[in-house]
């Protein structure tokens, strides 16, 4: 028996179709016959009637019909269903035999041909002796027939032929091979289909009629057999509703059978068949819930029917197959349009099938582990005379036996032994993996990522058992990260343990190290002694030694692994590994931080690295290095083991590079930043920790960004939420959770030791050359070199201010537009300690309002940091907000010589020009001079002399002066004339 013995027979799984045999066709040599046959068998789409056609020779021998039983009185059935029965009715016994015969109505040799045809019909009939199979005749004609009733010769000869062949008129057909062959064929096959249905209808009635002869004591098996046959015939008749009814009855009858150890397999086999039929029909009728309910019932009824305990694996194999077949049916129905849901999809059935396959494997392991001396029994008890069984589900060494006890206990023993020996050779893992992978595909489809992962773990474990470690590791490694990110440590630990075994057995050094590191660490729930064992192995591997084998490994594989590992030792190179920590939870944790978010250039940058181990034993590392965004500093952040002896097995706890479990160690680094890095950010790009030795084998743990593995972010969050008061730790010890992260720092310039003072008298007056005195005093200890002053309008203000502000060093003349708003880098030379520079600046504001002025003093100074001389650039900024106001207002009017207000002036009549100057300045204003420059249309009568010269106006005081003028005659009467310009020179 092959492993496929549990597969359902194909004749059970197919869709039964009416079987019609075609005879008299020579499809090899006759082109017309070939065309007819092709028309029958090609293009059988769903819209054509379900018939399976077969071409048979005219003298074909059909299976013999046994003589009909007249009484069941002395008949004792030997089994439920014969193994050949379904195939017989699908492929051997036709419902209808059609005889094709070439004969035209006007054939000259009509008489001879008629009798030849009759003979052929007779031959077929004889062969079908005792069967109810119908016979039909199709005349292949060259001529197109006339409409019915018009051809008198035809109807006469037709009835003659019917008489000669003993046919009813309904069984004689004419097939003209003209243009419309396919059309004729379709009409023919529809007629055949009707005949076939009648045949199957009669068969059902025939089987049903047996019932009255049966009695319930001796004929129990027949009740099941007959119901099954009626169901099957109904299916052939395409009456699936009744088929379902018959099968359901058969199903309940099969469970009423007296079950004992000897016939348990037969009962289960038939129950499985009938269940399969019922479920299939339910899916076909689009009632999937009925199918599921039937299947559940089936499983519940059969679960406990284990049968012989020595062959318990047979039961689990059968159970597995039940689930698998149902899964297949379910999946097929989905492909035809059924919608499944997350909690009810074929995956569950494949999963359960896999579960039973695993059980089977386990039972086989227990039941089939015979002594090595026990061989396959001879003669083969599984051999039968025909090479096959007569009845489904029976034992080959006692076919047809239906009583409770086996007829021959010795034979029984041999038979069981034979089955056990066979079972030993079954590749269980392959079966299990195939089922699991089916299930994985389903669960992937129905959004069950966790179920999928779980099944993949099982697959991986099965591959491990099957010694395919590469595939096992691939699967396990793939799903591991899902469990890690979801923080299911118990499951992760279990997967890692299997993965570690695989990597050990394959001698995969890097994987071995990676898994060990995680199994030893805090994400692992392994007991302490296991962790301790793994850590010791890990240290061995790092010393390039052969690790101890993992427990419970296959001894043969361990032997292989040991030689693999010893090969690894001699292998030079390939002994350095880098593990990116963020993908794992290794047993060493690291946090690196800058002490402050910024450092001045004249102080050393300080960096602390905290390292902690969670393994059971202290561990030594040989290198700790920090990589920074500017790699030039890396050399200062490096801790290397000076001693080169190989003594990592005996770490002394006092040592600097030894990590004691549970204690946090702090490593401090400092370096002097480069002056070109002022204003730049320095980041920790990674921290590397080297375990092992360069001389042997070593692994770099690499923390990107200087901290954190796959579990850290959650832990940090939990720690930050915690209300727990930190327990005071003794001196020198740190609480890991309180260490915060500062992974970057800014380098900022040195604090200037210089004072910048501004002396001025606000507010400024419009158009005034406003004086501002800048006093720079050095408080440096050394000489401040290269002092440069940048002064003026602070950039970034209103654009109009830039137009209306000018600054200059020269106060003796008024600025114009050519002067800038900001004077950059005015060199002021060097400044000795304590010395000061006074620098006046003049600002010319054309418009009123407030503006911000900036005074930026830059210089460089030498400094010594950590014994290093550097030149620091320092700068100090002072800003001041300056208000600008109007100094005075000027009003003018024309009055007569009597000081009367004038709307207009008259030619040649003198008048007075009055000027009023009203001071708005908070400061006294001295009017230096005033002057009128008259236009040509006006002349002064006396010398226009300033009357306000030298007058000082206090706030809101007013000064007035007047000029006597007249207008010379103008050409054309009245007109508007210009009077001239009025200039005032003033200062505060």
């Amino acid at each position, binding site marked *: 028996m092959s492993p496929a013995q549990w597969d359902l027979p194909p004749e059970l799984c197919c869709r039964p179709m009416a079987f019609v045999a075609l005879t008299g066709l020579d499809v090899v040599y006759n082109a017309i016959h070939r065309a007819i046959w092709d028309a029958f068998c090609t293009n059988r789409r769903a819209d054509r009637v379900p018939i399976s056609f077969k071409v048979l020779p005219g003298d074909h021998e059909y299976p013999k019909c046994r003589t009909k039983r007249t009484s069941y009185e002395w008949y004792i059935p030997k089994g439920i269903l014969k193994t050949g029965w379904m195939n017989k009715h699908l492929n051997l016994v036709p419902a209808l035999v059609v005889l094709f015969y070439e004969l035209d109505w006007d054939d000259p040799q009509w008489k001879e041909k008629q009798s030849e045809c009759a003979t052929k019909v007779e031959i077929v009939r004889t062969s079908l002796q005792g069967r109810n199979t119908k016979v039909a005749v199709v005349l292949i004609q060259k001529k197109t027939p006339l409409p019915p009733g018009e051809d008198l010769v035809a109807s006469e000869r037709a009835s003659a032929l019917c008489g000669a062949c003993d046919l009813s008129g309904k069984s004689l057909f004419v097939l003209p091979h003209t243009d419309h062959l396919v059309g004729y064929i379709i009409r023919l096959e529809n007629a055949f289909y009707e005949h076939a249905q009648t045949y199957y209808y009669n068969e059902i009635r025939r089987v049903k009629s047996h019932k009255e002869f049966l009695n319930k004591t001796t004929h129990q098996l027949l009740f099941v057999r007959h119901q099954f046959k009626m169901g099957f015939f109904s299916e052939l008749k395409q009456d699936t509703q009744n088929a379902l009814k018959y099968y359901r009855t058969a199903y309940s009858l099969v469970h009423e059978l007296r079950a004992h150890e000897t016939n348990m397999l037969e009962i289960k086999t038939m129950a499985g068949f009938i269940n399969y039929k019922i479920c299939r029909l339910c899916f076909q009728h689009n009632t999937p819930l009925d199918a599921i309910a039937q299947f559940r019932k089936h499983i519940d009824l059969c679960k406990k029917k284990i049968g012989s305990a020595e062959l318990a694996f047979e039961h689990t194999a059968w159970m597995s197959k039940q689930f698998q077949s149902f899964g297949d049916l379910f999946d097929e129905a989905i492909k035809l349009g059924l919608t499944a849901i997350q909690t009810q999809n074929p995956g569950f059935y494949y999963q359960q099938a896999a579960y039973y396959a695993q059980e089977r494997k386990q039972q086989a392991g227990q039941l089939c582990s015979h002594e090595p001396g026990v061989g396959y029994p001879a003669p083969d008890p599984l051999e039968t005379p025909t090479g096959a069984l007569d009845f489904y589900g029976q034992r080959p060494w006692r076919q047809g036996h239906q009583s409770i006890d086996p007829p021959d206990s010795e034979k029984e023993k041999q038979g069981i032994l034979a089955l056990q020996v066979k079972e030993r050779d079954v590749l269980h893992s392959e079966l299990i993996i195939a089922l699991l992978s089916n299930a994985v595909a389903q669960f992937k489809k129905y959004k069950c990522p966790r179920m999928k992962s779980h099944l993949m773990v099982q697959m991986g474990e099965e591959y491990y058992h099957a010694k395919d470690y590469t595939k096992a590791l691939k699967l396990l490694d793939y799903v591991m990260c899902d469990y890690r990110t979801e923080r299911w440590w*118990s499951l992760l630990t279990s997967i890692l343990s299997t993965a570690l075994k695989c990597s050990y057995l394959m001698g995969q050094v890097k994987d071995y190290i990676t898994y060990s590191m995680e199994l030893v660490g805090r994400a692992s729930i392994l007991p302490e002694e296991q962790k301790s064992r793994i850590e010791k192995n890990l240290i061995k591997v790092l010393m390039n030694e052969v690790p101890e084998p993992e427990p419970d490994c296959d001894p043969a594989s361990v032997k292989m692994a040991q030689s693999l590992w010893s090969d690894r030792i001699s292998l030079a190179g390939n002994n350095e590994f880098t593990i990116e920590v963020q993908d794992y939870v290794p047993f060493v944790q690291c946090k690196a931080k800058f002490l402050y978010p910024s450092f001045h250039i004249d102080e050393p940058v300080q960096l602390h690295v905290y390292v902690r181990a969670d393994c059971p034993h202290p561990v030594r590392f040989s290198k700790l290095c920090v990589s920074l965004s500017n790699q030039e500093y890396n050399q200062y952040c490096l801790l290397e083991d000076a001693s080169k002896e190989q003594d990592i097995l005996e770490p002394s706890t006092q040592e600097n590079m030894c990590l004691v479990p549970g204690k946090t160690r702090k490593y401090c680094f400092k370096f002097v930043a480069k002056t070109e890095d002022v204003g730049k950010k320095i980041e920790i790009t990674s921290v590397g920790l080297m375990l092992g030795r360069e001389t042997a084998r070593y692994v770099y743990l690499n923390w990107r960004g200087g901290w954190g593995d796959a579990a850290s972010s959650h832990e940090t*969050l939990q720690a930050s939420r915690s*209300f727990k008061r930190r327990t005071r730790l003794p001196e020198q010890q740190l609480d890991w959770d309180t260490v915060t992260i500062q992974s970057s720092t800014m380098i900022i310039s040195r604090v200037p030791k210089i004072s910048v003072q501004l002396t001025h008298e606000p507010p400024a007056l419009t158009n005034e050359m406003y004086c501002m005195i800048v006093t720079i005093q050095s408080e440096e200890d050394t000489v401040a070199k290269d002092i440069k002053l940048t002064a003026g309008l602070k950039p970034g203000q209103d654009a109009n201010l830039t137009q209306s502000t000018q600054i200059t060093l020269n106060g003796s003349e008024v600025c114009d537009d050519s002067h800038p708003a900001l004077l950059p880098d005015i060199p002021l030379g060097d400044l000795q300690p304590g010395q000061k520079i006074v620098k006046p600046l003049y600002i010319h504001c054309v418009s009123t309002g407030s503006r911000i002025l900036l005074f930026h003093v830059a210089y460089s100074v030498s400094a010594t940091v950590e014994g290093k001389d550097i030149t620091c650039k320092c700068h100090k900024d002072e800003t001041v907000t300056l208000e600008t106001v109007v100094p005075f207002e000027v009003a003018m009017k024309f009055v007569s010589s009597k000081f009367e207000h004038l709307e207009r002036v008259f030619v040649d009549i003198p008048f007075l020009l009055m000027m009023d100057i009203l001071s708005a300045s908070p400061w006294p204003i001295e009017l230096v001079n005033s002057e009128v420059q008259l236009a040509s249309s006006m002349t002064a009568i006396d010398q226009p002399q300033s009357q306000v010269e030298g007058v000082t106006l206090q706030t809101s005081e007013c000064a007035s002066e007047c000029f006597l003028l007249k207008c010379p005659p103008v050409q054309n009467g009245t007109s508007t004339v210009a009077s001239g310009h009025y200039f005032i020179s003033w200062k505060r």
Partner: protein
Amino acid sequence: MAVCIAVIAKENYPLYIRSVPTQGELKFHYTVHTSLDVVEEKISGVGKALADQRELYLGLLYPTEDYKVYGYMTNSKVKFVIVVDSSNTSLRDNEIRSMFRKLHNSFTDVMCNPFYNPGDPIQSKAFDSIVSTMMVQAF
């Protein structure tokens, strides 16, 4: 009576899992973990259709051959999972609901403890004893 009771954090990691010691502990962990697929699917559906309903009981998550897995989710998205033996047919839906309610009450007490940091594994004697009353007693 339950064979396994679990409390799962909002982020789907276990806060508490207890199962009967007679059968493989790991198997129950897998059962609870895989049941989260159904929980996620259920709550994503509830969010759409039954947003206003305050039903915390998620019902039968999925039946396996040997066990029935029931789910419950608090308003803070902490999940409770109860696994019962499939052979235990006497257990009604109502009883499962009341088990969940009891569990929820006890969980609330745990949360009210000022010394408990939400998100940490539950280590409470009171909670333990409540769970014990709902578990199948080991023989």
